């Protein structure tokens, strides 16, 4: 079954990549590329906040391109979750909210996790895989 989601990034409030996962061979990045992309997105997100003509803008939420869609969710703490997927994919918004829920549960409540550090929590990985697998049937045109 083709996956609509290409990859998922989580960046901390200073722009460092703390979690990266890719699904499928399309859009696979190696470590250096993913780190570079994450800090690039962090800067773009911050700049867009300043440039926006509308008041009360918190940054880019959706980027639509020919070959992909990028949706970003920023939590109140500054942690950003963004996902790159096939163009026209629905339900990315709720997917990001669910990932945020999983982050709060399995990462922040883990006493062995240092905040702002790369995420190495087995439970988070497990539940994320389950979430993506469950949404594969739901997300789509």
């Amino acid at each position, binding site marked *: 079954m083709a996956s609509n989601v290409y990859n998922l990034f989580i960046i901390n409030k200073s722009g460092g990549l703390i979690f990266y996962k890719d699904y499928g061979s399309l859009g696979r990045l190696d470590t250096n590329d993913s780190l570079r992309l994450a800090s690039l997105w962090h800067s773009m997100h911050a700049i867009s906040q300043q440039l926006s003509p509308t008041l009360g803008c918190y940054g880019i939420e959706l980027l639509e391109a020919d070959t992909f869609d990028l949706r970003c969710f920023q939590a109140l703490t500054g942690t950003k979750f963004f996902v790159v997927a096939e163009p026209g994919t629905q339900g990315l918004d709720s997917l990001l909210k669910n990932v945020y829920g999983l982050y709060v*549960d*399995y990462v922040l*409540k*883990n*006493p*062995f996790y240092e905040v702002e550090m790369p995420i190495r929590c087995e439970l988070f990985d*497990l539940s994320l895989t389950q979430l993506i697998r469950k949404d594969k049937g739901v997300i789509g045109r």
Partner: protein
Amino acid sequence: MADAPKKGTLRAAYRRAADIKPRDARTWQVSLNAFAFLFSEMVQYNQTRVDNIAELEHRLEHAGYGVGLRMLELLCHREKKRSKASWNSLICPQHPMEIALWKDSLEKGTENEDEYMISEKELLVNRFISVPKDMGAFNCGAYVAGIVKGVLDGSGFPARVTAHFVPVEGQPRPRTTILIKFSEEVLQREARLS
């Protein structure tokens, strides 16, 4: 009140907190998230004060021990109907405290006479915790083992209680077993009484 504290002062906060009483002790509920964060902080607090994993487990067990002793009193208070006689009965599944805490009965270990086990799919304290690989077989269930130890010690059944992960076929997460090893004097006493 003549000298009612002003709204928003610290005294006012203490007064309001004291007014909160559970309507029915049995339905008093605590937020799972609050407990999870508190427990996580407790583990982190102890982690900075120990040199090795065994000591961390010991500290968590010690923390649970105090809870177990106090919980024994609370359970006794609630279980007023039980007669005194049932407390002195055999260690077997009839131990009233175990039934109050766990609905599944104690299982008897196959290897030794003095070993009993409580098996759980996943302990509440471990629900959000992923132990890093370099910590080996460390289990935050040591806290729960401490609670059990407190309950048993307080009711006159001294034992060594430990929590272990037991991997299960086809399941990504292992089950947890709490192993209870009763001390010599308990077995001798039971042998004398039966």
